[in-house]
């Protein structure tokens, strides 16, 4: 028995010695992309694998965002995490707080000697995933932002100019009234992702802080402050529109998207720019894309909107060879060609300026009007402390709370002020819980 073991060990050692770096190092990449985007992810990995022989990136679909993140954390607790995991934007603070579990991207790139310039990335995208010193912690992958989709046919029917979408919320409210009066659509206006669109991104768009300590970038002691006069006024207007039937609420996530392009759809929807693909495929009418509306008279508005989507995180504790491969893959992934292709196919924004310029050069925006609105919104101004993103722990729970409180405004149970005050109070409790669970590091 002992001899056998010894022989096996020797054979193993011999094998390792005989095949230095012959077999490609496998890099596990857990992601949450479904359907056509799942195929795109596989394509990207295949292209990378074909471009060199040292490393092999293996993409694995691990369920929705929340599922794959839980799975990766569970795998980490079981001491066997993947090399790379795709985490949605609301999980950013949780990942960032787990300092010893993750390896920051800037460090991965630096140690591997890969050329890496954070300035090449779109500022509003990079800032969301950078630490307080501007160092990129995770690699932006699929990012989208909040825009307005509108039905041009319904606009014509209501006697509105289909090439003049509303710029401000006041105009949107008026247009919605006209659409309703003319019965130009079964529903005048709806929204997807109400917390992200109407509060998180809208705050940035008006350059008002969502939370203290630079929206949480400055530390875990942040407190929510979206119950400010600008946001109260905004939610009040939407509440008023819900009351008189100009705003139809259909759900917390993407329900608004499918409502928009369905046969008894809404004439306008504020939603993620990434729903472009689905809308284009399903809408039986001519639609337009325009900037997210803002409120007139708010100083600094419009500023820039913030992103949603996901980024790629690298786990710590892997062999050095893995990090070299990851760095090479990240460089490949950020190359203008790959990024431009991803952007054009999915409706996600290009994450680098070079990819944006390449797409411009290829004439994509002329052929597909409206697809550059999202990136222009992100590039409008340099992000401020209030507009570079939201870095809050327990953000999924806070979004739940916001959803609940907003729903009570849409149903007329609470005033906008009372609901936002309550959301801030309850959300702060979540922040304190997160702070307590993560303190001492």
């Amino acid at each position: 028995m002992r001899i056998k073991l010894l022989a096996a060990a020797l054979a193993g050692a011999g094998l390792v010695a005989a095949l230095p770096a012959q077999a490609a190092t496998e890099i596990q990449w857990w992601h949450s992309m479904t359907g056509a985007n799942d195929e795109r992810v596989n394509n990207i990995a295949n292209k990378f694998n074909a471009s060199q022989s040292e490393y092999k990136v293996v993409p694995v679909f691990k369920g929705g965002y929340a599922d794959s993140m839980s799975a990766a954390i569970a795998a980490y607790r079981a001491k066997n995490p993947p090399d790379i995991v795709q985490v949605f934007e609301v999980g950013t603070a949780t990942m960032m707080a787990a300092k010893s579990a993750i390896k920051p991207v800037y460090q991965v790139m630096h140690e591997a000697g890969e050329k890496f310039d954070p300035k090449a990335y779109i500022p509003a995208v990079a800032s969301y995933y950078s630490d307080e010193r501007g160092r990129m912690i995770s690699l932006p992958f699929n990012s989208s932002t909040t825009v307005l989709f509108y039905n041009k046919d319904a606009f014509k029917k209501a006697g509105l100019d289909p090439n003049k979408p509303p710029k401000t919320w006041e105009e949107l409210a008026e247009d919605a009234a006209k659409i309703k009066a003319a019965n130009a659509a079964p529903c005048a206006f709806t929204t997807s992702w109400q917390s992200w669109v109407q509060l998180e991104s809208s705050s940035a768009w008006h350059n008002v802080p969502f939370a203290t300590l630079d929206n949480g970038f400055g530390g875990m002691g942040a407190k929510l402050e979206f119950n400010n006069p600008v946001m109260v006024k905004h939610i009040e207007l939407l509440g008023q529109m819900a009351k008189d039937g100009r705003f139809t609420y259909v759900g917390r996530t993407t329900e608004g998207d499918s409502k928009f392009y369905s046969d008894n759809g809404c004439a306008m929807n504020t939603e993620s720019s990434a729903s472009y693909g689905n809308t284009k495929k399903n809408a039986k009418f001519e639609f337009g894309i325009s900037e997210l509306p803002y409120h007139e008279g708010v100083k600094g508005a419009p500023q820039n909107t913030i992103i949603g989507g996901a980024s790629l995180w690298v786990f710590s504790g892997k062999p050095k060879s893995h990090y070299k491969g990851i760095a090479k893959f990240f460089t490949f992934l950020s190359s203008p060609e790959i990024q431009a292709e991803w952007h054009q196919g999915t409706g996600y924004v290009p994450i680098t300026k070079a990819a944006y310029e390449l797409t411009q050069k290829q004439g994509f925006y002329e052929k597909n009007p409206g697809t550059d609105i999202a990136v222009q919104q992100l590039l409008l101004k340099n992000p401020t402390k209030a507009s570079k993103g939201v870095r809050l722990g327990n953000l999924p729970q806070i979004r739940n709370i916001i959803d609940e409180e907003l729903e009570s405004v849409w149903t007329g149970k609470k005033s906008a002020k009372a609901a936002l005050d309550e959301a801030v109070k309850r959300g702060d409790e979540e922040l304190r819980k997160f702070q307590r669970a993560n303190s001492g590091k």
Partner: protein
Amino acid sequence: MASQKRAQYPVGWLPYALVAPQLAITLIFFIWPASQALWWSLLVQDTFGLNVQFVGLLNFRELFADTYYLNSFWVTGVFSTLMTGSALVISLLLAACCDYLIRGTRAYKTLLVWPYAVAPAVAAVLWAFIFSPGAGIMTYALRVWFGYDWNYLLNGGQALTLVVIASAWKQVSYNFLFFLAGMQAIPKSLIEAAAIDGAGPLRRFATVVFPLLAPTTFFLLVVNIVNAFFESFGVIDTTTQGGPVRATQILVYKVFQDGFKGGDLGGSSAQSVVLMAIVMGLTVIQFRYIERRIQYA
């Protein structure tokens, strides 16, 4: 006394070996996780487990200070009463009809059992589709025929109704099988005697059939309540996710939401400990007080 014979088995390893698999399963899948939950309920930790602090009963104190948690108790009570009640009454009615029928029972029986084969999540998607505020056929019918505005995403009462319907629908099949089997086990002579005495079908059901069904009803009551507490999870997750404004957030769903979605393992463990205590308590009460009044035939 000496004549009373007792079988004697040599006490060796065999009995232990025979119960070992069952014991192992209980230990691994019940005792171990349950004790972990008990231990974790006394800790506060981040999701990665990098920072673990012992906090005593803090999680429990916070839980009972949280009005939304207390609300969850109320929702669970209402939900399980409605679901158990409607599932029992409807299945009893269907079973009685089926038992009374002479022709075609087979077809009815088969059809009525079908829903039980549908997974909870699938059943929920089905019902959610029928009652969808955007495209649901029932939403349309309610608006056109009754002028009733149905939107379970905004109306808590409607949301609760929807999850009760979807969960009860499945449970009816299960209950139906047991009720029907129970009814067919009742000796025909008893029913015939009652009929000769001049009792109509309703009277026979009330005075003969239903009392004799008591053990079945009791068994189903326990099973249904446990089901309402735990199995309804799939239905709620696929339809309302506990909303709107926590109108359908029953205890087990809150455990999932806080623990798996929220990463609050301490708070979630504390909730599961409370839930464990409640279900154990309920079962004890049912067996001690209700079972006493039941006569087994």
